[in-house]
């Protein structure tokens, strides 16, 4: 536990120094605000952009607040995922590339403590950034559209956070297997994309897939309920994340060499 806290604090300090603690939440907040604002001004934007024939009437139904939240989460699912994977790709590989990791592993530190401290620290930063962004979305949505009950907002936030739990585990796993940052980011994105693709192609066999988390959050927001499918997807996502972390620890012990 002591080692874990020391290593966790070091990650926090590092993320403060390199600015991750600042730029990541700001970017998420901007993305979070953008969606409700562009939805709100969509008619004007279209009017300005299109060469509409004289007298054409633009008639787009105004989305509900819940729909705006869903659209934002889908934004987070694409741009956010990409951003998070890029923000995580150097977490282990950089220390390996420079060799600074040697100063940690020559001390009585267990691989498990090293990996898990990094995982928890990075996940914490990402979740705070995500929550900050989503809270802004909620605030703007309530203001511009209609009030979405806070319990629904919290429910969707919680369930969607599991996606971040998974993507952090995936990126750390590739971070222990590969040395090259680009490779780590590329493989992580590819893996997550494949998961989504398979889920859309074979919905029958992929009911457990973490990619269904976005469907579950939509269900929560629109229908205001979470059923057994939510539980299934949540449990399988958590299980997969733990599995990937365990695999990362195992492979780290097996593959990672220090020095020449």
């Amino acid at each position: 536990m002591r080692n874990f806290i020391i290593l966790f604090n070091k990650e926090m300090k590092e993320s403060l120094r390199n600015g991750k603690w600042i730029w990541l939440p700001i970017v998420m907040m901007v993305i979070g605000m953008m969606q409700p604002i562009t939805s709100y001004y969509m008619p004007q934007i279209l009017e300005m952009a299109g060469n509409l024939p004289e007298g054409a009437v633009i008639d787009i139904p105004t989305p509900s607040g819940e729909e705006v939240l869903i659209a934002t989460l889908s934004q987070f699912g694409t741009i956010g995922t990409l951003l998070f994977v890029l923000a995580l790709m150097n977490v282990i590989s950089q220390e390996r590339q420079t060799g600074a990791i040697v100063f940690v592993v020559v001390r009585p530190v267990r691989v498990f403590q090293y990996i898990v401290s990094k995982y928890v620290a990075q996940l914490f930063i990402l979740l705070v950034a995500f929550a900050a962004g989503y809270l802004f979305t909620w605030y703007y949505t309530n203001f511009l559209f209609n009030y979405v009950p806070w319990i629904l907002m919290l429910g969707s936030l919680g369930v969607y956070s599991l996606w971040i739990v998974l993507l952090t585990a995936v990126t750390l796993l590739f971070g222990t297997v590969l040395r090259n940052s680009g490779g780590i980011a590329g493989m992580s994105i590819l893996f997550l994309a494949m998961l989504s693709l398979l889920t859309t192609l074979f919905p029958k066999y992929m009911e457990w897939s973490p990619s269904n988390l976005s469907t579950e959050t939509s269900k929560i927001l629109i229908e205001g309920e979470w059923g057994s499918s939510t539980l299934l997807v949540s449990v399988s996502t958590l299980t997969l994340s733990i599995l990937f972390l365990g695999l990362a620890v195992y492979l780290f012990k097996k593959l990672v060499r220090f020095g020449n």
Partner: protein
Amino acid sequence: MLVTVQYVSKQFKKHTAVHPISFSIGKGRCIALLGPNGAGKTTTLQMLAGLLKPTSGTIEFVGNKQIDNRSQIGFLPQHPTFFNWMTAQEFLQFAGELSHVPKKQLAIRLKETLAFVRLEDVRNKKIGGFSGGMKQRLGLAQALLHEPELLILDEPVSALDPTGRRDVLQLLDQLKSNMTILFSTHILHDAEQVCEDILMLKDGRLKWSGTLEGLKKEYNSLAIKLQTKEPINGALDQLDFMEEIEYVDSFTVKVRLKSLANSNQLVQTLIENKRTLAHFELLQDSLEDAFMKVMER
């Protein structure tokens, strides 16, 4: 005895970096691990430091049956790279905490160690801006911060300029009295300056292990070169302490004695045989000669 190494070897895929080697490290000794580049020095040290698992054999710390000996070891890698965003003080604090040095003691050790490696003036500067020599000294500081039983240093002076080299060697000399030191180098002179024991490694095989004195003694041929004004004409041939005799010309001879103590008798015999001694020289082998002999063995 502090560490006993038995039949330890390391295989990387098809390449054998270290063939089974056995040696022991005496408590309080200073040992130099000598050998050319690629001899397996770094691999050996990394196995001792717990960074690499030996393919076979055991490394045992006497009085500690635990498998994890890392808390008793201080290690300085060959090319130390740090967390550049930390200051020297922050890095040592981090290192000390990870080595479980109690808080109060760590504060004291931090001051002592920073002063010892003469980095107290730059302790609040970012490591990213440090010179090679400063980084090497910081590396030394993190290795000895937790007062380990065994200090393992991989080529601590190779990358340094002459001043930095002298600095680090002097620091090692001061540390000798407090801890057991094992360091690798490919330069014999560095070993000679601070250490009493040496291990010689070549092509992953242990060529020699023992004291420097022992090496000198074992490989000293005790040769003497003599020159006389008159031709020698076999005046020395019947001496019973003579091991070898080699005539360079009729006035000059190189002899090898069973013991150097016989050299007086040698001179006496010459005088008794009415030869005037023109030149007398002890042809002592230098340490380099001994080193070369061992390595080519």
